[in-house]
């Protein structure tokens, strides 16, 4: 909306007279903010702590963070880097997770119940050749289908992602590792999130990748691997149309993206072997988490035009919060992985990594 607003009223805004007001609304002082998005799929978790102030936030440099699962202390967080505290723990659906933080006399705590995980089964995959239009050359896709069984008896919200990973031992020369950015020799392992737009996804009534009418630099096509808040990157969807039932989730990745060749020198005629797999991960979310995700997805879509960076239409309501004694949002998402093995793949670079 702010894009339209700016397009239409920008010329007027540039010529407007401005009056600045400093509303003197009550301010209760600094508040401890705790945010954490935890997952049953991870063993290492990050808690973000900050001080909320009138006109700024500041990282909490020295805090004690603890985690209890079902009443049992399981971990304490350490090593704050820019307010990020990490700890190790494992969660399971149904667990009562309590996260607490103490800093400078402030105590913030959040208690969440890990939602039930969806049942995701029946993975199948195939490799298809598909052309968007009759005039185009068909391209190769890895198409993965899984069945998502809705958690019965309640309103449910989900998100889904597709990753690919492969390793190429003996890759000659110096290879730039995508993950670290360093040039290494030897086996190259690559994991990347792939969320290719494939025709099935377009018409999926649940996923419906929103059309991006981007007028700025965040062109979705060129930033497919980056967090793009104009699009439904995480395939968020509710159970509106398959409540208590089953939905077949289809995610596709173009082969050239799934097995994208790293930026490196290579010997074109040399034979390589790559072990590759594709992982579909489906998370179940709480309704508050769902709202929070949708709000932050929009909130962070700042619009800039002609050098102006005015957020002319503001978020008008608070985010969901569940931290007592402070502010913030803690959530644990129940994840289910389905892994399909698509390797080993053998061939020259041009075969394993088709253009």
């Amino acid at each position, binding site marked *: 909306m702010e894009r339209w607003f700016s397009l239409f009223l920008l010329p007027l*805004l540039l010529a407007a007279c401005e*009056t600045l007001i400093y509303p003197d609304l009550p301010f209760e002082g600094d508040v401890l903010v705790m945010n954490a998005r935890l997952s049953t799929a991870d063993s290492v978790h990050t808690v973000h702590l900050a001080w909320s102030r009138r006109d700024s936030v500041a990282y909490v440099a020295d805090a004690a963070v603890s985690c209890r699962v079902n009443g049992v202390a399981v971990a304490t967080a350490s090593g704050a880097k820019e307010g990020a505290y990490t700890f190790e723990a494992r969660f399971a659906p149904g667990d009562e997770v309590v996260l607490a933080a103490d800093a400078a006399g402030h105590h913030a705590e959040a208690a969440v119940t890990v939602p039930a995980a969806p049942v995701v089964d029946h993975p199948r995959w195939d490799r298809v050749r598909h052309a968007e239009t009759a005039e*185009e050359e068909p391209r190769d896709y890895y198409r993965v289908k899984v069945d998502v069984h809705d958690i019965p008896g309640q309103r449910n919200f989900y998100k889904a992602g597709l990753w690919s990973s492969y390793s190429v031992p003996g890759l000659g020369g110096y290879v730039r590792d995508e993950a670290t950015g360093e040039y290494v020799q030897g086996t190259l392992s690559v994991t990347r999130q792939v969320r290719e737009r494939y025709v099935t996804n377009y018409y999926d009534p649940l996923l*419906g990748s929103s*059309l991006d009418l981007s007028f700025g630099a965040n062109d979705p096509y060129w930033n497919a691997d980056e*967090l793009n808040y104009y699009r439904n990157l995480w395939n968020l969807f509710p159970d509106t149309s398959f409540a208590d039932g089953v939905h077949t989730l289809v995610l596709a990745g173009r082969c050239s993206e799934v097995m994208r060749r790293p930026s490196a020198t290579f010997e074109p005629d040399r034979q390589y072997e790559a072990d590759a797999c594709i992982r579909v991960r489906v998370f179940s979310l709480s309704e508050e988490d769902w709202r929070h995700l949708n709000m932050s997805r929009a*909130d962070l879509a700042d619009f800039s035009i002609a050098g102006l960076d*005015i957020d002319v239409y503001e978020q*008008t309501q608070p985010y969901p919060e569940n931290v007592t004694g402070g502010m913030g949002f803690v959530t644990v998402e129940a994840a289910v992985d389905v892994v399909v093995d698509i390797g080993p793949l053998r061939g020259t670079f041009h075969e394993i990594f088709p253009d």
Partner: protein
Amino acid sequence: MMKRLLSLLLLLAATAAGAQEILRTQLDTLQRRFAVQWVYDADLDLARPYTGPGLQGLPLERALDTLLDGSGLVWKRSGSHIVLKPAPKKGTVSGYVRDVRSGEPLIGAGVQCGPSGTVTNVYGFYTLPLESGRNRLTFSYVGYASRAVEVEVRGAVDLTVDLRSDAQVAPATVTARTDVGIGATLMGALEIQPSLIRNTPVLFGEADVLKTLQMMPGVQAGSLGMSGIFVRGGGGDENLVLMDGVPLYGVNHMLGLFSVFTPEAVKKVTLYKGAFPARFGGRASSVVDVRMNDGDMKEWHGSLTAGLLAEKVHLEGPLRKDRTAVSLSARGLHTVLAEPVLRLAKVPYNYFFYDVNAKLTHRFSERDIAYVSFYHGRDFFLRREDEDVSEHQWGPEPDYLPYDSRKARKRDIRVGWGNTAAAASWNHTFSSGLFAHTALTWNRYSMRTRQDGWRLQDDLDGHEEETTRYRLASGIRDLGLATDWDWRPSARHIVRFGGGYTLHRYTPESAGSVITSRDTVRTEMPGRAYNGHEAALYAEDDMVLGERFSLQPGLHLSLFHTGGRTDAVPEPRLSARWASGAWSVKGGYARMSQYVHLLTTGGFSMPTDIWVPITGAVRPLVSDQVSLGGYWTGVPGWEFSAETWCKTLRNVVEYIDPRLFYVTTVDWEGNVAMGRGRSFGVELLAERKAGRTTGWLGYTWSRATRIFPDGSINRGRRYPDPHDRPHKVNLVVNHRFSGRVDLSAAWTFASGQPVSYPTRVTEVQTVDGGVSESWYYPDRNNYRVPPTHRLDVSVNFHKRVRRGERTWNIGVYNLYGRNNPDVSFTDRRNDRRIILVNSTLLLCIPAFSYTWRF
């Protein structure tokens, strides 16, 4: 000699015998002359003497009228027979009241006969039951000379009267209207004259229907001088805006700075904001009934206007005198004509709109009149980008070899939106004074946007070239059939009843894109279309119960079917009035329902606003309003009123997050919440209607809040509606110095709008589990910006010219340059503090226009 004397005596005797003739004898004479047969009851008294003038040489109809005048008998032809019967004790007089010069029907003209009276309906038609015999009727209308007509009432009498315009007529001599205004049983109904619309000073000197309504008590304006109206706490989509009976969805141009109504084409505007006539339904808060000119039946005339922003042309006249007339109007911004030049000059932006109105009226007879009307209006926004930069650059180390780079970009964005509406209708008057209006209507509202782009980059990284094409469309189409009947069974009852059906087709959004670079990626989202079937039946009786008390009960029964689901809402309506002398008290109750919602993200009329029908998850919006008022007309030329009201709204729909307007066919119902609204207030009005100086002073105190108990918005807490502005004052003065100069001034005051202001900065999670800084709002609409007030003035200089009259209008909007908060937003400036920025976009804007009327 004797013979001549005898002949004279015989002649005298014969003459004396003729003077004693009875009706039967005359009838026998007529029977021989015209070879007709009489049919009558045997006990009909035809032996009564006839002493009237002779009937020789008269045609049959006139002879019978002359013969039976005063006899208590009436006649009716049935083939070759003439039926004679006693005259009924009661009869009806019905017909049209028109302007003698143009033949234009006059809406709300008074018709009085002793204690009985009525007013013409929206088609200028009246019916008045009277006692049989000779009656004297007086016809009157504001700004017209009254006229008295004597008529012999025997059964049903057709009487169409023409009135002559006369600016000297005092309003006190005009019969008070009984359908709107203080004299009506219905409360909360205001009539706006076209002269008031033309004379009310407004933005850029462009007279505007909706902007004039904003000056009325109980009606809030939107932000930025927008022409949206928010009536008694209702939303901008809760107003049923009708153009000749056709509901319009988009009624704003230029984000709401102007409405779609060209004032020159408007005949009458009526605003219903309290109790509603039973014939209206489909919106929860108000009805704006706009009637367009029918066309001058007598002679051609028109006007040409050139203003600061727009040109207007109006032309009306008879295609066949007293039979067929046409009215044509067109309006457009200057930039319509400048677009080709702007494109050649590579001006990056352009915006324009235009309206076209056309109406054809044909009178088959006084009993049958047909209308065909057409409207088309469109807004366009264009944006162009074209840049091409070539540079000679140094390459990277170690060689620093120079190279040429080039970056080029072109983009063309076009957004267009607007309405097209058409109606074909027929008025038929039955012999008993029963009036029927039947109409077939069609309306289409659409928004389309298209972006074409091309990008090229040539540098050390290689050559990249890409073309993009996006399109987006949204719209509604309606096809409807309705019939409305007016029946006057007695002098104390006006019964109105009727019904209608409308087929709606909603296409909230469909989109597609093609991006071509190394690959071509095509995205198509054909969009989901909804069909909606809406039907309604209604009936009401405006009844006079005694000298002082009147009651208007009614029922509107509406039904809506979509997606396999049917909703029906009975909507009772009740108004009552008690009057004694100059005092009157009114009370009213009305329920209204609405089966369509406008998803909007702010107080502005945006082309991306989407109309969506109710679904299984989104229920009909229902309002209940109770109102009470007191009125006094004890000072000639003045009216004083005080009204209070309370309104509740159920199933109000809002975006959970107002920025969640993503173009998606997926689960929009999941992005909205349903809640409740509540509003109440008091409206005071003192209005002077007569004399050189007219105008009004209005004050409104009101509150409007919303609540979403499910917690989806503002954590379930009640918060002020965006248009909750507790205090509103309007002072409007029109003074006529002479026939050549008149002045209008309007002072407006309104409390500031509530906005959301962050009280601190916090962190929120991102979708990948990281965090980002965000401003924290404890409540929605938790801060009120400073109030708005301004003075608008305009002066008209009229002069008779050889052909017609010319008028210079010079005006100033916001004369004393008040820095009103037209747009408010939060921002952070160099000191890093979060502030509220009030931008004043409309600051002391002069305007002028030249009009030639011929």
